């Protein structure tokens, strides 16, 4: 019904610059109808009848020992099935020390308060602090040395759908409705807790409410705990985090500290030096890497050292381009500081330092689009409102991953695209339909996608921008194989040789004559025909999947020098990703990457209380993410330059934004703000410092 009023394709009136670049210029998101009408079912929406609700018991302090826990009182609460304490020490705010299972969410809440836990808080470390950088010799050949420390805070992923799993346990089999970025990795360990072989259960995640890296952790503690309870009671089980738990214990982008001591010449040439970085990894053993230098610029010989610093906080998880935005922030601002110190235009200096010719062309376009000519030299404005312009650059490599695919033509003339990979909002579903429709030669309307189900052909977990890049190669091969079989069967019916037939807009053509319509041909099949593909070395060659993505971003903003408030005017984001599959979802990925970078630059900060180690802002009011009114006009530009292969798009647009904004603020106020987020008080300090 809805399909008739909701078109699968409609042209976009805006952004003429991007017209005609993508395989599909006008396809709407395939699952857009289900999403705007509210019919899309997410894991959290699946509440099987007779289900058991589960939640963790968590430490409320940065570091504490539970002296007394009234398990008996909690167990006695009506509707409570079990209370299990697995440890007494909490090493960070939000660390689970056990769980409760109950008949309802209300019983869970009552039981949690009946536990009446008395905690003995202990000293908690809450930040990286100021580790000493060992003394380095001045770099050879330098006229000057820049020594500076750049820091970034802990950023939480803040997906709108929280982490969790709903398990429909049906005795000898089960369906795991997981909010996950890995349909297949979410099975890991589940066989053990369910006491079932993997052949008896499957993971379903048709719709996932965001992840950004935080849902790459297999079944996760949420899934495994729900699985254990489901198996124990032989009933469905449901465990989803609330917003506070989501901030506290489902991963984050680790904080960073970057100490640079770098030499440069009078002409702005950077001759090398040392970069020492620290990553704040909470109680985790690692994962705090800072990608600085990025290798995009020629910075001479850099000696790099990194150390992870542990403190009493939840551990990091991959977060959209792990390590990159924090590194790019330091690198871009450092380059602008050198440019300003040597009296050079930051654009001109980047043209000189950048290692990629293609990115130079991007700088030229970006400068034109943002109006770089209007930029005034850094530190020359004395008005209340000060205009600033900044630049950042990005790159991302294409990583190989295993992917299988299947395409089926059904006798009712529908084409089914089958991939077990997941669409976490990226547009994977839509992209795969477009790739197959194009390769087969059929209209997009006949293509349906089965996705997010571990009984479908295996696909990679969505991390590192590998999903579309790899699955599409398998899809192309599957479509080619299917087309061959299909045309052989049709040719036999028509009494012609298969090689003479083509499919054009669904019609079966011989030379320029229509032999059969799509419907007639499919009906003539009698049964479904399928083709399979697999991403392999061979398919990589055949369908040219190499190459990396790159881009530049330009920022235009205003700083109120009396309040320190930053107002973004425009951001131009030029991005290459090889052959663009779907224009609308690609533009959306770019804008979405920019807003996460912007939000990181201006607002986000997981704050741990210095005395108690507790997070003081575990919500979406005081842990602020950018809202509609914070956003400038963002102009995504799909770069045509290197249109070969299907290249990564998820991570690269979020890398340069914070750095570009910091550079623009520096340009406006005349002194760099070296700590994110760029809070008004820090901006005012920079202005004051610049005056003194």
């Amino acid at each position, binding site marked *: 019904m809805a399909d008739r009023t909701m078109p699968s394709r409609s042209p976009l009136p805006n952004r003429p610059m991007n017209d005609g670049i993508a395989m599909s210029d006008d396809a*709407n998101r395939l699952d*857009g109808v289900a999403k705007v009408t*509210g019919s899309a079912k997410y894991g959290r929406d699946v509440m099987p009848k007779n289900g058991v609700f589960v939640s963790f018991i968590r430490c409320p302090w940065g570091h504490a020992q539970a002296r007394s826990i009234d398990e008996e009182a909690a167990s006695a609460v009506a509707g409570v099935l079990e209370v299990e304490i697995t440890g007494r020490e909490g090493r960070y705010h939000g660390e689970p020390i056990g769980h409760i299972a109950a008949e309802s969410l209300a019983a869970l809440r009552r039981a949690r308060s009946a536990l009446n836990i008395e905690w003995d808080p202990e000293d908690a470390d809450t930040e990286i602090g100021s580790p000493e950088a060992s003394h380095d010799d001045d770099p050879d050949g330098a006229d000057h040395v820049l020594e500076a420390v750049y820091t970034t805070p802990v950023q939480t992923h803040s*997906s709108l759908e929280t982490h969790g799993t709903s398990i429909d346990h049906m005795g000898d089999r089960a369906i795991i409705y997981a909010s996950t970025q890995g349909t297949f990795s979410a099975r890991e360990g589940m066989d053990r807790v369910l006491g079932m072989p993997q052949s008896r259960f499957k993971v379903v995640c048709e719709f996932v*409410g965001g992840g950004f890296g935080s849902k790459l952790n297999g079944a996760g503690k949420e899934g495994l705990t729900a699985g254990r309870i489901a198996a124990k009671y032989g009933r469905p089980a449901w465990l989803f985090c609330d917003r506070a738990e989501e901030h506290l214990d489902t991963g984050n982008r680790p904080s960073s500290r970057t100490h640079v001591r770098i030499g440069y010449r009078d002409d702005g040439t950077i001759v090398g030096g040392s970069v020492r970085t620290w990553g704040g990894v909470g109680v985790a053993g690692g994962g705090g890497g800072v990608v600085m230098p990025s290798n995009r610029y020629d910075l001479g010989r850099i000696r790099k050292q990194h150390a992870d610093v542990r403190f009493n906080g939840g551990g990091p998880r991959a977060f959209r381009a792990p390590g990159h935005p924090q590194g790019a922030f330091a690198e871009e601002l450092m380059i602008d500081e050198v440019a300003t110190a040597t009296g050079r235009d930051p654009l001109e200096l980047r043209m000189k330092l950048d290692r990629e010719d293609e990115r130079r062309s991007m700088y030229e376009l970006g400068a034109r689009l943002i109006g770089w000519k209007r930029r005034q030299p850094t530190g020359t404005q004395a008005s209340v409102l000060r205009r600033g312009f900044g630049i950042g650059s990005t790159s991302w490599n294409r990583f190989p991953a295993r992917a299988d695919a299947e395409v089926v033509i059904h006798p009712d003339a529908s084409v089914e695209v089958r991939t077990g990979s997941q669409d976490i909002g990226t547009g994977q579903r839509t992209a795969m339909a477009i790739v197959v429709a194009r390769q087969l030669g059929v209209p997009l309307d006949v293509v349906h996608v089965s996705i997010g189900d571990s009984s479908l052909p295996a696909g990679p977990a969505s991390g590192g921008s590998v999903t579309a890049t790899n699955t599409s190669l398998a899809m192309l091969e599957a479509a080619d194989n299917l087309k061959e079989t299909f045309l052989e069967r049709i040719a036999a019916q028509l009494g012609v040789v298969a090689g003479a037939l083509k499919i054009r807009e669904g019609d079966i053509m011989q030379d320029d004559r229509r032999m059969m319509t799509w419907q007639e041909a499919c009906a003539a099949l009698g049964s479904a025909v399928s083709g399979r593909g697999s991403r392999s070395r061979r398919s990589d060659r055949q369908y040219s999947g190499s190459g990396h993505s790159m881009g530049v971003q330009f920022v235009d903003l205003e700083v109120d020098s009396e309040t320190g408030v930053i107002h973004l005017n425009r951001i131009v984001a030029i991005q290459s990703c090889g052959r663009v599959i779907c224009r609308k979802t690609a533009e959306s990925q770019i804008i979405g990457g920019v807003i996460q970078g912007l939000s990181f630059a201006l607002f986000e900060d997981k704050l741990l209380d210095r005395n108690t180690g507790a997070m003081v802002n575990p919500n979406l009011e005081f842990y602020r993410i950018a*809202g509609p*009114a914070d956003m400038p006009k963002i102009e995504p530009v799909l770069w045509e330059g290197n249109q070969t292969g299907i290249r990564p798009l998820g991570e690269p647009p979020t890398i340069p934004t914070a750095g570009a904004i910091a550079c623009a603020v520096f340009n406006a106020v005349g002194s760099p703000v070296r700590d994110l987020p760029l809070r008004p008080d820090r901006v005012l300090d920079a202005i004051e410092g610049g005056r003194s």
Partner: protein
Amino acid sequence: MPQIQLTLNGSPATVDYEPHHRLLDTLRYGLALTGTKEGCGEGECGACTVLIDGRPANSCLVPTYQARGCDVRTVESIPAETLRPLLESGATQCGACTPGVVVTSAWVRSNPELIETHTLRQLMAGNLCRCTGYDGIIDGVQQGLDMDAESRGAKP
């Protein structure tokens, strides 16, 4: 179980509810209207937005009892054909915030005079989205307003 009477998605309804249930719980868990999402549970993100007597409200902040006698509309009652602009403009990515966005946009569109005193970005500011960057959302609401103005025969 106690009951309240209300108008739900255009029809009179008698609804059983747990006394401690928020309207959000009653909708999602009692009535299986899972289009309404829970994003934060404390009125910050707007994912659970419903219309109560024509005005947007965070259903996570409304005790079910408080909705007695009210006209409650959820995303499920918004006519699909009016949502076409949001689909076309790319107002959705992961979709978890989308139902709230849709409901707020329906409120804006049924009160077009609001844009004389507020910007669309201000009107939509109660709905947080982590994926789209809001451009598609704002474009979609604007196109919806244009479409409505056109069908009323007025100049947009």
